[in-house]
């Protein structure tokens, strides 16, 4: 990269991979995207029933960015919704539980259950429960079975769940914590004797977890932001059963949202939309309310593309530089110099800008000239003909 001061920047504000959202910068969405997302969320907030939204688009169209925006900007702004982000969660329903509980952490979840249940303990071990979870962890010498049984009853009394088996599994999640203060994958394989999840009661189990999160954090609902839903398996080929599992997972999630305290935002490719709709049209209709809550991410317009670049540049503009609202070191007519396929896809645009800035040397004229920009574009995104010729 050329001397940053020559470009009027403190660093290169674009990422080479442009995969998802930048880690540190504040997130920016085109005004039309923000309006559309907010109005969908407002509409869903006010109503009852399924709170689900499908966001579809090609790879690089901004799906992950939109989910990150919901995670980091929009849901926190609303205070009463706690969002969780799942990336490529796996085909089984409990893969989601695995991902969710790992995000919370075993100790924190066990502590939540302990504290919610402790006030309902009436009999044996009352003192132990009143001394708090940390003290329990320190003084763990007692008969686990006694604590387990007391905790199980208290979980039911705390209205976390009415199901005895789920209450037992949750109680075990707490009492086994001193011995094993972490989650491992086998904890989420239903049917194993030492599993922390219940077999054939997936929805009820998840309902209990959501209740714990709501009661413990004083929030109204939880939002699941599921990215790359179509990458449901790392295997090359899914079995028929797994193909069913994909739809079953989606259906169970939608069933959960019926309770009114779970939001579900799923990002998927256009092919995933088409196939889900083809395999289970009724499910798709329920999920998107007959297409009303399915949003196909639009291509960036010339204005949106320019605004995106300006926003990124402004964040790293050297202090005192008067060009805070400009495209410098890019020329003012940057977008008109690029092919529509380059500037209309956020990932391509960000990658292009990264390499244009990163590849500039001391001798590269600034603002960048058309021939330099075209060279960068052709190198990054050669046409099929250019590839064949090379």
């Amino acid at each position, binding site marked *: 990269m050329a001397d940053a001061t020559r470009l009027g920047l403190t660093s290169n504000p674009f990422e080479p991979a442009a995969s998802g959202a930048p880690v540190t910068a504040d997130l920016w969405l085109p005004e039309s995207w923000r309006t559309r997302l907010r109005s969908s969320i407002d509409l869903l907030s006010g109503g009852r029933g399924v709170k689900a939204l499908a966001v579809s688009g090609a790879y690089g169209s901004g799906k992950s960015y939109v989910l990150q925006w919901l995670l980091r900007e929009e849901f926190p702004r609303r205070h009463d919704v706690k969002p969780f982000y799942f990336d490529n969660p796996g085909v089984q329903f409990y893969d989601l539980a695995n991902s969710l509980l790992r995000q919370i952490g075993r100790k924190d979840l066990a502590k939540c259950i302990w504290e919610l249940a402790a006030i309902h303990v009436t009999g044996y071990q009352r003192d132990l429960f009143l001394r708090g979870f940390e003290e329990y962890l320190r003084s763990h010498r007692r008969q686990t079975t006694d604590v387990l049984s007391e905790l199980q009853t208290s979980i039911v009394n705390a209205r976390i769940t009415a199901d005895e088996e789920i209450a037992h599994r949750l109680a075990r999640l707490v009492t086994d914590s001193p011995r094993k203060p972490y989650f491992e994958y086998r904890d989420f394989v239903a049917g194993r004797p030492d599993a922390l999840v219940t077999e054939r009661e997936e929805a009820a189990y998840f309902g209990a977890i959501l209740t714990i999160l709501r009661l413990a954090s004083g929030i109204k609902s939880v939002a699941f932001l599921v990215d790359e839903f179509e990458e449901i398996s790392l295997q090359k080929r899914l079995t028929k059963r797994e193909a069913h599992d994909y739809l079953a997972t989606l259906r169970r999630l939608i069933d959960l949202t019926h309770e009114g305290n779970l939001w579900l935002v799923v990002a998927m490719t256009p092919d995933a939309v088409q196939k889900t709709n083809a395999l289970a049209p009724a499910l798709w209709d329920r999920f998107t309310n007959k297409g009303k809550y399915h949003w196909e991410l639009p291509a960036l317009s010339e204005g949106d593309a320019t605004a995106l670049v300006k926003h990124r540049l402004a964040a790293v503009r050297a202090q005192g530089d008067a060009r805070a609202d400009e495209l410098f070191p890019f020329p003012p007519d940057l977008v008109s110099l690029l092919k529509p*396929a380059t500037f209309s896809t956020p990932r391509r645009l960000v990658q292009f800008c990264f390499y244009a800035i990163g590849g500039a040397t001391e001798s590269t004229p600034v603002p960048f000239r058309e021939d330099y920009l075209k060279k960068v574009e052709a190198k990054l995104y050669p046409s099929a003909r250019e590839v064949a010729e090379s």
Partner: protein
Amino acid sequence: MKDGATLAATIPFANRENARSEGDQHQLEPRDAWMRPVSFFGLLRILRIVAGSPAGLRAGELDEIIRSGGAYQTGNGRPSRTTLYHCRNTLLRLGALKREGRRVTVERFDPLVAALLNEEQIDSLSSTAKEHFATLVLRNSDCRRHFFDLFMRGSSDYTLADFRNRGRSVVWFWERPSPTGKRAVLEGSGGRSMALSSPSAIKGILYGVRYWARDQLGLIDEFFREERGFIMYPLRPFGEEEDPSRIAKQIASLAPPGIRKWVELSVSDLKVQLCEKRRQEVRSLLNAIQWLEAAHAGYVVLVPTSRAFATLTASSANREQLQLRGYFQDNQGRYISHIRLHNSVLSALKEA
């Protein structure tokens, strides 16, 4: 999983079993399923060898000439005796060869066989030779009754041209009538259907005559749709509408009217509209997409899908390959499910 069984009912394939009554099904006797996957280019060379011996050849003599002269090649190299038996049997059943005692001779008085023998000797099967063979296949009563009739509504008296111009689609799919049983079902658009349960019936129809029609003779093409199954449809005669720019123009005509800068089209939907309905090869559509990308670089965006999702319902390596066959693969090896066209491309194509 608790919902696995109930969910199966939401998948269209699973519903078909109950929807079809046994009465309208066509049954196939194992002896009628003699068709096997053979190369028609190889058959033409065998026909020429027999024609070179006016007195005819015994089976062993013919096999020896074929094997020593390398007249018939398989994927593994030299053909086995079983393969050569099936080649001979195919030519006999199609009426290109006849038996005279223990010898086989050419049916010289059949104009189609005569025309095949007059074909110029080249390294592949010419389109005319394909048409002659296609006529022989369509003329065979077993092939008609157990395969081609499914494509035709009403009368079973039709020519090659009738088949190409009036034939309708046939959908096939696998189903499990019992936990251990498995059968292939072919459903014609005229309400006719056929279930293939025995291994010989499946070999003869699915891997025999279907393979001839699709891969050898260019009579039909096939693609997959999740909600329907494998769709086979008749192809128009060779040479028509092959120009990719013409098909690209047809693609543009399917874009919904409006003022949007970009229009996204599903390749799977394009296959229905341009291949199934207009009787064009899937390959022609894929060539047209490739042409579009090259001719309008920067104004056409190819939208890939994940390989796992592309073959979501495939439960074997073969079916996975069959499903992937209908996808356009770009120069990076990605499977393309949708294409996005800039409105300037649409305007240019519509005006061209």
